[in-house]
C-alpha cells in the first residue's frame, strides 16, 4: 500500500484541521516542517467537515480547505461532508 499525504500551511486554522484529521485517521503521521505541516497515511486519508467544525467551533465548508492547502498526493474525492484521498 502506498502513502497518501496532505500538506497544510502552518497557521491557526490548520492547527484544528490537523486535530480533526488525527481524530478521524488515528494512524496518520504528522510531520512539522518550517511553515508547513505534512500528514501522511497508508492508502487512505479523510478530512471530515463535522469533525473540523467541532474543533473550530464554527461552520466550515470543505472547500475552505483550499485556503490552507499546500499539496496532496492520492486520488481526490471532494464532497459536501468530506474530502478523501486514496491510492489503489
Amino acid at each position, binding site marked *: 500500500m502506498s502513502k497518501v499525504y496532505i500538506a497544510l500551511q502552518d497557521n491557526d486554522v490548520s492547527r484544528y484541521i490537523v486535530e480533526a484529521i488525527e481524530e478521524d485517521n488515528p494512524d496518520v503521521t504528522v510531520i512539522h516542517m518550517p511553515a508547513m505541516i505534512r500528514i501522511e497515511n497508508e492508502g487512505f486519508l479523510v478530512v471530515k467537515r463535522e469533525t473540523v467544525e467541532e474543533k473550530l467551533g464554527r461552520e466550515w465548508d470543505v472547500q475552505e480547505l483550499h485556503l490552507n492547502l499546500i*499539496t496532496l498526493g492520492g486520488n481526490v474525492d471532494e464532497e459536501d461532508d468530506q474530502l478523501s484521498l486514496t491510492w489503489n
Partner: protein
Amino acid sequence: MATKKLNLKDKYRLLTRDLDWEFSYQDRKEAFPYEEFEGIKITDWSKWEDPFRLTMDSYWKYQAEKEKKLYAILDAFSQNNGQTNISDPRYVNALKIFLTGVSPLEYQAYQGFAQTGREFGGIGARVACQMQSIDELRHVQTQIHAMSHYNKFFDGFQEFSHQHDRIWYLSVPKSFFNDARAAGPFEFMVAIGFSFEYVLTNLLFVPFMSGAAYNGDMATVTFGFSAQSDEARHMTLGLEVIKFLLEQHEDNVPIVQKWIDKWFWRGTRLLTIVAMMMDYMLPNKVMSWKEAWEVYFEEAGGALFKDLARYGIRMPKYAETIEKEKEHISHQAWWTFYTHGHATGFHTWVPSDEELDWLSEKYPDTFDKYYRPRWEMAKEMEAKGERFYTKALPQLCTVCQIPMLFTEMDDPTQTCYRSSDYEENKYHFCSDGCKDIFDDEPEKYVQSWLPVHQIFQGNCGGPDVEDILRDYYRINVGTDNMDMKGSPDELRWKEWKGTA
C-alpha cells in the same frame, strides 16, 4: 419561498456541465480542430470527472480570500523592512533565479492553459483549464509584486523579463515551456498538467518554500504557498487527464506512455537548477536535494505509478538513471555556475566550511569522493587572489539546452555526451534521454534557439563576452555578476548590519 442549498455534485453539474451546448449548424470537428491531431481517441467527454467540483462562484470567493491574506503579508513584509531579517544575503540570489527563470513560466502556463482549454471538446476539462489559466496569471503577478520589494535593495532583479528571453541558462526553462506549448493539447496536458504539476513542481514549491521560511523570507514563502494552494487543484487536473485518456481508449496508452517518458526526463533536467538552489543557495538548510527527491519523486511518484499500473502505464523511462542522478546533479550544476559566474545575472560563491561539512554528511557516497576536492581547490585559488572563471562558452544540449555538465552516472569523472546526425548536421545531447527525444522529433528540435550558437553566429552583439553581457543580456557588469564576495549586495548588507 425558502431557498434550498444545492449539494456540491448538483451545483457542479448545473454550473459546469450545463453551460455546454450542442452544435446544431456548425461542424463540431471544425470547432475543436486539434482534438484528434495527436492520435488520441476520445469517445465520451461526459465521462470526465472533476474531483474538486469547484464552480466559478466559489472559485472567485476563495481566490479573493487567498489574495487578501497574501497582500496583507506582503505589505507587512515591506513596511517592516523584511529584507533585513533574512538569514544571509547570499540567499537572495536564489530569488533572482526564481524571478528570471520561474515566474515567466507561470506566464507561459497562463497562456498554455488558456489555449489548451479552448481546444478541448469537453466542458469539464475546459472549465478546469480556464481556472488554472487564471491561477497561473495570479502566480506571475504575485511573484513580481513580492520580488519588487527585493528589487529596491538588491541587484539583478531589474531586467527579468528581457533576460528570460536571452540569457544562456534561462533558455532552459523557457524552451521547456515552448516545447510543451508547441505540442498538441493532450501532450501539453501530460507535459505540464501531469508530469510537471503533479510531481515536479512540488519539489520547488514545497521543500524550497519551506526553506525560504527557514531563511526568514516571509514574502517568498507566502507567495509560494499561496500559489501552491492552487497547485493541489492543478495536480488533480493533471491526474484526471491521464486517467481519462487511459480510460477512453486502449490506443491512447502507448501515446501517453511516450509523453510521460519524454516529459519526466525533460522535467528532471529542468529541476537541476532547483537541486542547486536547495543544496547551495539556502544558507539555513531544511533538507538536501536528495532527501527532497526521495520524498516527492521516489515516494510520491512511485505511489502514483503504482496506481497507474492498472492501465498498463509503467515508470518513466530512465528511472534508474534518474535515481542515481540525485547524488550528483546539484554539485555539478553549482560548479558550472561558479566557474561561469562572470556570465550570470546573480552571484556565486564557494560554500563555507560548515556548508561543505553539511554536504559531506548529506551525500556520504559522492561528495567527499568527487566534489569536495574541487571546492577545496577553488577556495585555495580564491585565497591566492585567483578566483577561477572559465574563458570558454559551454556546449549546450540541443534538447534541454543545459550545458554539457552532466557526467555518466556510473562514472562521475566522465562527461556524458551523445550525438545524432540529421540532414547533414550533427546534434549534441547531454544524455540518452535527450537524444531519444530528439530522434523522435528531429524536425522540431533542429529549430532550437541555442544561446551559445546564437552568440557564435553573431546574433547577440559582441564581439566580446562582456559586450554581450552588458548590451544584449542587460546585466550590470561588475554589479549583478561575479562572486558574492566584494559585491555591492554584500557591501550594502554589511552596512545595514553595521559590520562594514
